[in-house]
């Protein structure tokens, strides 16, 4: 990942159509207290609360 994006002051995550995490920057990994290997290839639900999973399904995953 581009270094500026990796350490940008905001979180960055990219997903595919199946809601699998493709890439995630260091800023967000730090906020969530995960390392890249733990999240890359996992479903986005892994980092969302149940309420947020619902919000995501209602508004985003369509």
């Amino acid at each position: 990942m581009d270094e500026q994006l990796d350490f940008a002051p905001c979180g960055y995550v990219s997903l595919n159509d199946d809601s699998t995490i493709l890439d995630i920057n260091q800023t967000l990994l730090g906020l969530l207290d995960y390392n890249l290997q733990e999240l890359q290839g996992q479903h986005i639900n892994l980092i969302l609360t149940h309420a947020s999973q619902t919000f995501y399904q209602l508004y985003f995953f369509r």
Partner: protein
Amino acid sequence: MNQNTLIRNNVNVTGKGTKAMIFAHGFGCDQNMWRLVAPAFEENFRVILFDYVGSGKSDYSAYSSTKYQDLHGYAQDVLDICDALDINDAIFVGHSVGSIIGMLASIQEPTRFERLVMLGPSPCFLNDPPLYKGGFEKEDLEGLIGMMEMNYIGWANYLSQVIMKNPERPELFQELEESFCSTDPTVARQFATATFFSDHRNDLQNVTVPSLILQCSDDAIAPIEVGKYMHSVLTDSAYALMEATGHCPHLSHPEETIRLISDYLKSVADQDSSNG
């Protein structure tokens, strides 16, 4: 024909058939959600699309916090539309809470409906241990309502206007805005409360219209246990587990959705004709 209802609920009628097929959207969107599914039925049905009051391009001045405090107010929208278009024996296809609303309407006026097709229905989202698992604790639902109050969708729409900066191509912005299904945040919060804190388990036994339950795999909103529960309590219900994941199979897996609805309608039509 009551023109007021048709305008109030932004009713759109298409299709070449005579039998009515009503498509009812769920929480957080509008009739646009059916764009990949409804056209497939236009050859054989009179296809009815509408927005509940407070959603989409409905008449927001008809919204009342009292009337729409629970799902019965929304069920009245469906019955008003049936009355305005003189609909009886309709196929009612509802998504999520839209299907529960149709079910309530069918209890009030069963002759309006011949079949109910329910995509991802849930009669009660809250867990009620030990016997019922709706999938949500009270904190989960309060967290969801809290996120709606922060009005992310409103922010997204505002930012999209700023970012797009294509004033000569307003259709781009309109498309984006429609993709977010923006609704009035106050109405959305009240609809969310009416939806997610409702408990219609006791109404299931009063349903007389036969139904098809289409259950998605891996749906955090209406889990498989809930679909099976509905199937076990609803009289004359069929149940199909979809390959589709998530909660919006009519958008994510339209072909499978169309196929399962068509197969069901064909199988019950064959039954009816063999019974004479």
